[in-house]
């Protein structure tokens, strides 16, 4: 929250640039995400707020390239990511330049990355916490097996080392074990695993694996990890399951976690504790978190900065203190006014008139124009773009940045 007081800001670790995701439907293309852009700085918690269907979940999934195509079509834009300790920036060979944001690290466009590179990032460098842990855990596998997958996928070499199998061993048994640890075991390997000498070695791998899984679970304050590892998802409570999901996300100590409404599906009494847990772990690991939520009060409590989305676009970005104390976009103002407060006049709940527009073949102009109380003629003809209104605070609204003559043409040229 106080990042600009500390002098140097942490480097940008991920950035979304003009992301456009469309969905094919019977009535035409739904522009679910239509030119979204924001940055995530290393170690910060960025809140992404908006109503249901504004495209915030799709934006979050873009970081893992988990947007199902079809029905979705990625119509444009970039999702950039700079892993910590990654390869050197090809432009400046690690000395720091404009292309790499002075970090010297390599910048990856996650949407264009080949599948196998993407898999190395998923779960290891970028992890995800899903909205409903009851659905995001496979009902037919034990927690232990599901957690183990992450380690087997990304830490198999360390596991082999722990089990005392050096990388130089190239005999039949070591090769079989290597395949088992890399989850590439064949039918014969699974049979061999049951007999000595492989049985002992496989047992050591399993021990190393169990130890890691148990440690990861223990970190999310699960009291008896060993029992939880043997349990099936349906045998755990909702809060417990979400702890498992969090443990799984943190397993490989990722640089960025996408948390897609992680408390929405939980009981109100548990929400606060899970939220606190995420915050604590985020601070301990210095992990950047994209916290997707429709709940403004939650975002205010835990996030450093916030991006407000409306109908597939970012309406306002800024630090939590700036946005909440001095909202500049009429939509943000409306949202904040709609949050019920203790001590407010009884019997009246503020709301924004109208409803979210249909995103099928949208016409140019501000998406909020239909519902805005301060609408101007320009709002229905031109798309407002994000512009600065203070340090680290930007708004896409003509009230702050009146359109100048000829803006329509320039913007069109830019988007094309």
């Amino acid at each position: 929250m106080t990042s600009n007081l500390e002098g140097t800001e942490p480097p940008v670790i991920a950035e979304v640039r003009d992301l456009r995701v469309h969905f094919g439907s019977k009535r035409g293309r739904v522009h679910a995400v239509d030119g979204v852009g924001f940055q995530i700085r290393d170690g910060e918690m960025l809140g992404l707020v908006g109503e249901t269907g504004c495209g915030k979940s799709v934006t979050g999934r873009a970081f893992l390239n988990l947007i199902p195509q079809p029905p979705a079509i990625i119509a444009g834009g970039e999702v950039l990511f700079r892993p910590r300790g990654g390869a050197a920036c090809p432009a400046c060979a690690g000395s720091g330049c404009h292309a790499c944001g002075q970090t010297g690290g390599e910048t990856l466009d996650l949407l264009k990355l080949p599948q196998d590179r993407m898999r190395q990032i998923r779960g290891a460098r970028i992890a995800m916490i899903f909205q409903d842990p009851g659905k995001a855990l496979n009902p037919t596998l034990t927690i232990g097996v599901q957690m183990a997958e992450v380690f087997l996928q990304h830490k198999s070499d360390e596991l082999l080392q722990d089990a005392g199998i050096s990388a130089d061993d190239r005999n039949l048994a070591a090769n079989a074990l290597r395949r088992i640890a890399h989850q590439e075991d064949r039918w014969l390997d699974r049979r061999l695993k049951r007999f000595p000498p492989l049985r002992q070695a496989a047992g050591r791998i399993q021990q190393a694996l169990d130890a890691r899984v148990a440690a990861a679970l223990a970190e999310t304050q699960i009291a008896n990890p060993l029992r939880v590892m043997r349990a099936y998802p349906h045998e755990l409570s909702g809060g417990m399951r979400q702890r498992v999901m969090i443990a799984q996300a943190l397993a490989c100590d990722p640089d960025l976690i996408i948390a897609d409404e992680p408390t929405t599906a939980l009981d109100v009494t548990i929400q606060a504790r899970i939220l606190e847990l995420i915050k604590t772990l985020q601070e301990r690991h210095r992990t950047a978190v994209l916290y997707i939520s429709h709940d403004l009060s939650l975002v205010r409590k835990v996030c450093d900065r916030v991006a407000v989305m409306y109908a597939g676009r970012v309406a306002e970005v800024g630090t939590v203190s700036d946005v909440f104390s001095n909202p500049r976009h009429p939509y943000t103002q409306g949202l904040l006014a709609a949050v019920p407060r203790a001590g407010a006049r009884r019997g009246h709940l503020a709301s924004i008139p109208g409803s979210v527009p249909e995103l099928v073949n949208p016409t140019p102009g501000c998406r909020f124009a239909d519902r805005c109380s301060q609408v101007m003629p320009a709002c229905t003809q031109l798309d407002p773009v994000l512009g600065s209104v203070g340090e680290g605070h930007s708004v896409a609204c003509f009230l702050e940045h009146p359109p100048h003559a000829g803006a329509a043409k320039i913007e069109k040229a830019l988007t094309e």
Partner: protein
Amino acid sequence: MQLRDYIIRRLLILPILIFGVSVIVFTLTRIGGSPIGVYLSHEMNAEEVAALEERFHLNEPLYTQYWYWLKAALSGDFGYSGVASAPVAEVFWPKFAATMELSIFSAAVAVTLGLWLGVFAGTRRNKWQDHVTRVVAVSGASLPLFWFGIILLIVFWANLGWFPVGRSNAEIWASIAHPTGFYIVDSILAGSWQGLVDALWHLTLPAITLGFGAVAIITRMMRSALVEELQQDYVDAARAKGLPERLVLNRHAKRNALVPTVTVIGLTIAFLMQGAIAAEIIYRWPGLGRWMASAVVRGDQATIMTYVLFTSVLFLFANLIVDIIYAKLDPRVRLGD
């Protein structure tokens, strides 16, 4: 363990169901008339008939008759088959082996092919491969098995002459010993290539006829289950861990899609046993089904009763195995009642 309790609970219900089936079957046959019809002949006088009635306890109440029948059945005496002109128990086993060979072979092929096709179509949803598979599956489920068999016979036997009818070439059959009654197994035991080829050659058309409907049913279920599972969050969660698509499909989606499909496979067993009757008639396969078909037309009650009872017991056991697999696949089932 919970799974063991579940199996025991299921095993305990089994005798009750079998008892119920036997009561129904027995009642049915007694409604149909006297069971001594097959022993009667025109030369018998009234006393001889009365003696027979005495022997079969026909003048006693129905439940006593049932008791006598049950006692005999438990000791392996299922009565006299008029169609086969021999005691039922005597002709049963060779025919049973013939039917089982056909059914097991078809079932194995149908389950393997059905699951494979279901995954093939489900992972290519709404592509042309999917549409073709679905059309084949829907028509397969509507195809009258006896007609399909006849069409195959018209094409491959009557016109092309590629495949034979019957179970075996008599000469080759006679040249090897038959300790098990399963032609494939026997020819392997005898080390006879000729016998194995002959067995498979005769098996091909009946197995296709019998298996096609089952393939259709299994494919349809596996496809729709897989499509549904692939939309679940846990599949995306597995991808988000960085798992390769191979593991996402094999360890996660396929495993869960198997849960509903396994139930359908249980029903397919009944489908195969029913279909065996028509298939055996068409291909002159010397099995239980063909025996049952002639028994049905000629009112041979002992055979009908044994056959119905036997298929039901087989069906119940098949379903028990299916339930166990089901409980093994889906841990949530074991919790229930």
